[in-house]
């Protein structure tokens, strides 16, 4: 079997961090959460009809990053004003001040930070692609509509059919003599 299978996934969002890349792709039946570290990828699949909830909580990383950037910029400005006669110091503090301002602007553009979780019956996964409220607001409606479409039929099926338990003897049915191989449980 071929190792590379391009099975019709569509990239929803991608985020980069120091440890690697995380991506969220939508497939026909599931959403694929991909984590890439150095030269390997790991995958987690969340089937649309099994997702219980997607929710997020606001975090204070945004405010902390803003405070640090402003502090760096202001401190650099003060030191710059204090050492106007020394050209190398002026250059160094100018660079650090501009860096602080740039980081502040980038953080403000990216917007508030959140932690987002996809929950299923057996799993609860934090999605690192959704670390910003803005990205979440942009991407999440697409994902929600896919999940709701998949679960609409599920609700209809459940409403029409009563909940039934399998017969007790079925699960514990003995293997008969013609059995070729018993798969691992």
């Amino acid at each position: 079997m071929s190792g590379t299978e391009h099975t019709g996934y569509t990239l929803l969002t991608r985020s980069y961090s120091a440890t690697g890349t995380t991506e969220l792709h939508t497939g026909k039946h599931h959403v694929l959460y991909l984590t890439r570290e150095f030269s390997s990828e790991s995958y987690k699949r969340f089937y649309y009809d099994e997702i219980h909830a997607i929710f997020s909580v606001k975090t204070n990383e945004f405010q902390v990053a803003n405070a640090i950037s402003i502090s760096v910029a202001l401190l650099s400005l003060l030191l710059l004003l204090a050492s106007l006669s020394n050209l190398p110091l002026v250059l160094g503090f100018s660079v650090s001040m501009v860096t602080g301002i740039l980081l502040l602007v980038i953080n403000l553009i990216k917007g508030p930070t959140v932690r987002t979780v996809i929950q299923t019956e057996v799993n609860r996964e934090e999605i690192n692609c959704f670390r910003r409220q803005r990205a979440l607001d942009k991407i999440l409606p697409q994902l929600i509509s896919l999940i709701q479409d998949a679960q609409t039929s599920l609700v209809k099926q459940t409403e029409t059919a009563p909940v039934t338990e399998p017969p007790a003897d079925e699960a514990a049915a003995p293997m008969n003599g013609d059995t070729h191989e018993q798969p691992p449980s």
Partner: protein
Amino acid sequence: MTAKEVECPKCRTKIAAEKLAQIDNLSCYGCGNTLSGTVFPAIDLTKREKPSLSNPATGEDAVCFYRADQRASTVCAQCGLFISEMYRVRVGDEDFCTNCVAKSYDTNNIPALRTRSSLKDYQALLWAILPLILFFPIVILTAPYAFFLVIRHRNNTGGIIKRSNWRMPVAGLLAIVEFIGIIALGIVVWQEMI
């Protein structure tokens, strides 16, 4: 955690899912941060309908490979065996037997169930670039290995997601240049010595 609860991602306080569904910006009882999200109908369907899986075979029916008293309902997409409903695992549009699914966790050979992949293009690039940064003389070993990876996996770079394919040619080119460079350097040093 019960099925109808969600956990605050920050403080792990359990919150009733219906509260999250009803209130737009809910304050977490534990940390006070604002929670928002969507709860889907599947959370209420913890007891799904479980149809009877037993389907005894009659005289001329094809029978399940694993249970000869059961009628085969489908063919495993991986191994091709006839399997009954009891041994069928549906993954997307395909049916697999329980044996193949169990094996796939070790062998990683069913793409629909694959949980990890080794990316050969990234590896080749890493082997071609790292020696340049760390310790140049070992390119005599790493450049041929990077070139081998490029040739061996040129059509199959690993992974189930389509990626841009610039890494393999770049790694190959870099490996060739490095190898020629180190040979040339070796010749120059040798000529200097004699």
